[in-house]
C-alpha cells in the first residue's frame, strides 16, 4: 500500500490486461490499452467521454472479445467468449446501464444466469424460496434500504436500482468487482452508501475497478489510478502521488505521462 510504483512481477496482481484493441467498424474504441489491478486495492479508471473506459470494462467482463491483446487473471491467461465465462473466472461487473430487467423481481434479477434449481434430470425447477431468502440476506448484509426482494425492479427508484446492481455484483464473493460509473446519477446519500460498499469490499480483500468522472471520489477511494485517452491507458499513478490537477492535465493531454 505504500509502494508508489507498480511492477509487472507484483505477486498481488490479480488482473492485468495488455495491449487490448477493439474496433467497431471504423471506430477504434481501444488502441492497445494496458492496465492492472492488485488484490485488496481499489483501482480507478478515469478519462474523458469516449476514451474507451466502458469498452475496456466490457472486454474484461466478457461482453466484447478484444480484437488483440491478452487478459491475465491470477497469473493465467483467459479468453472470455461470454459474460458467463468472465463470471466463472471471478469477475463481477456493475455495468454502466446496470443490466437489470425491469419486469423481473429483485430476486430474479439477483440470480439471473445462475439460478438455483431443485429436482433432477429434466425435471429441474427453480428453487425460488432459497433464492428469495439468499437475495434478502445479500441485500440486507449490505445494509442498504431496499424494498422486499419480490417487488419488480420497475417499481424501484434509480438509487434503489443501483443498490441492487451493486449488491448483486458484491454478493458472490468474487475476487474482482468492476463498477462502471456506479454513482453517476446518484444523490449524496446514495453516493455515500455506495462508497461504503466499495470500502467494505476492499477490506474483505476484493480487487475493485472503479470508473468515475469524480476526481475527489477517485482520490478518496482508490490506491491506483489509470488515465485513459483515445483508447489507450496513457498513464498510471499511485493515488497518493498525484492530485486532481495532474489528473486533469493527463486526461486532456496537456501533460504527457
Amino acid at each position, binding site marked *: 500500500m505504500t509502494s508508489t510504483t507498480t511492477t509487472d512481477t507484483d505477486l498481488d496482481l490479480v488482473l492485468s490486461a495488455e495491449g487490448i484493441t477493439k474496433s467497431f467498424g471504423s471506430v477504434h474504441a481501444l488502441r492497445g490499452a494496458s492496465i492492472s489491478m492488485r488484490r485488496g486495492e481499489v483501482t480507478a479508471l478515469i478519462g474523458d467521454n469516449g476514451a474507451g473506459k466502458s469498452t475496456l470494462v466490457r472486454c474484461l*467482463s466478457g*461482453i466484447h472479445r478484444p480484437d488483440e491483446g491478452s487478459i491475465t487473471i491470477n497469473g493465467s491467461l483467459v479468453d472470455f467468449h*461470454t*459474460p*458467463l465465462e468472465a*463470471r466463472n473466472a471471478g469477475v463481477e*461487473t456493475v*455495468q454502466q*446501464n*446496470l*443490466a*437489470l*430487467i*425491469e*419486469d*423481473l423481481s429483485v430476486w*430474479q434479477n439477483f440470480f*439471473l*444466469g*445462475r*439460478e438455483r*434449481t431443485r429436482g433432477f434430470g429434466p425435471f*429441474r*425447477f*427453480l428453487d425460488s424460496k432459497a433464492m428469495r431468502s439468499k437475495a434478502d440476506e445479500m441485500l440486507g448484509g449490505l445494509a442498504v434500504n431496499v*424494498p422486499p426482494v419480490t417487488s419488480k425492479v*420497475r*417499481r*424501484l*427508484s434509480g438509487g*434503489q436500482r443501483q443498490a441492487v446492481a451493486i449488491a448483486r455484483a458484491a454478493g458472490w464473493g468474487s475476487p474482482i468487482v468492476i463498477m462502471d460509473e456506479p454513482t453517476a446519477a446518484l444523490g449524496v446519500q446514495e453516493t455515500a452508501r455506495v462508497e461504503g460498499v466499495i470500502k467494505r469490499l476492499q477490506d474483505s480483500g476484493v480487487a475493485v475497478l472503479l470508473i468515475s468522472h469524480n476526481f475527489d471520489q477517485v482520490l478518496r477511494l482508490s490506491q491506483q489510478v489509470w488515465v485513459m485517452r483515445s483508447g489507450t491507458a496513457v498513464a498510471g499513478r499511485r493515488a497518493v502521488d498525484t492530485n486532481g490537477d495532474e489528473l486533469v492535465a493527463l486526461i486532456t493531454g496537456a501533460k504527457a505521462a
Partner: protein
Amino acid sequence: MNTTTTATAPDVQRTTPADVLRDARHLSFWAEHAAPIGLVALIIVFSILSPSFLTLGNISAMLTAAAILVILAVAQSYVITTGGIDLSISATMTFGAICFGLAFSGGLGFWLSALVGVLGAAVIGIVNGLLIASGKVTDFIATLGTLSVATGLALIFSNGRPISVLSPELLQLTTGRIGIVGYPFIIAVVIGIIAWVVMFRTRFGLHVQAVGGSEEAAVANGLSANRVRIAVYLISAVLAGIAALLLVARVGAAEPAINTSYLLNSIAAVVLGGVSLTGGKAKIVGPILGALLLTALSNGLTLLGVSQFYQPLAVGLVVVLAALLTRFQKR
C-alpha cells in the same frame, strides 16, 4: 420565499392499501383481467340470449373447437414474451399437417407420421429462429417470409389437394372424451399446464422473460439471447405441429389451405390475455382465456344466427374494446 415547507415523509415509492383499492376502482384492474372479464360477460350475454349456449353439448363442442386456437395462443405467447411475433404460425401448422398427411399416405403409420408432421413444422421454426437470432432479421419480416415459404411448400408437397387421413388413432383423438371434455381440449390443457410450469418454474422460462425484458441486460448476465430466441420459435413451431395433428384429426384430411384467421386470432388471443407486444411480461392463462373468449364469441354469434356479415364486425369491436381496456394496464 425563505419560509420552509415542512418536508413530508419520503414515501414516494410506497403504495398503501388505499392506493390499491383506488386502483381497483380504476380501469387498470379491469385491464389486467380483460380476458376473464370479457369471457364472463360474453357467457352471461349469450346464455340470456340463447338457451342452447350453456347446454352441456354446446360447452363440449366449444371446448373441442377451441383446442387448436388454445395451443396456438400458448405458442404465440412464448414468442411474444420475448418481444417477437410469429406470423408464420398458421402456415407452419398447414405445412405440418401436409407433412403428416404425406407420411401417413406413404404408409408410415400414425405415430411415425405424427412425428414427421411435428418435425416438418419444427424445421420452419428453426429457420425462423436462425433468421431472427443469428440473421438479425426483424421478427415481422422473417416470419412473413417463412409464412409465404411454408404456404408454397405445403401447396407443392400436396400438389394442392387435400390428403385424406383415415386412422383409428386419429378417430380416437376426435371422438374420445372424458366426461364432456373431448381429447383435443384435454391435450390443449395439458400443453397449457406444461407451458405454464416451464415459463414460471424453470430457468428456461425465466430466461425467456429476461430476454423479452431487456436483451442487452440478459446477455450481460450471461444468458444467450440467441439460444433463447431460437428455442422460442422452435417451441412455437412444434406446438403448431401438434395443433396440425388436431386439425387433421378434426377434419379427417390434411389440407394445404392457408388459415390466416388462425394467425390473427392467435395474436388477438394473446393480446386479449393481457400480454404486451413489447415483450417481457409472460402470461399463459390469459392467452388461453383469450382463445376461449374468441371461440365463445364465434359460437354464440352462430347460435344466435347473427348474419355472417356481422361476425367480423363483432370480432373487430371486441378486439378493439379489449385493447382499449388493456391500455390501462399497470406496467
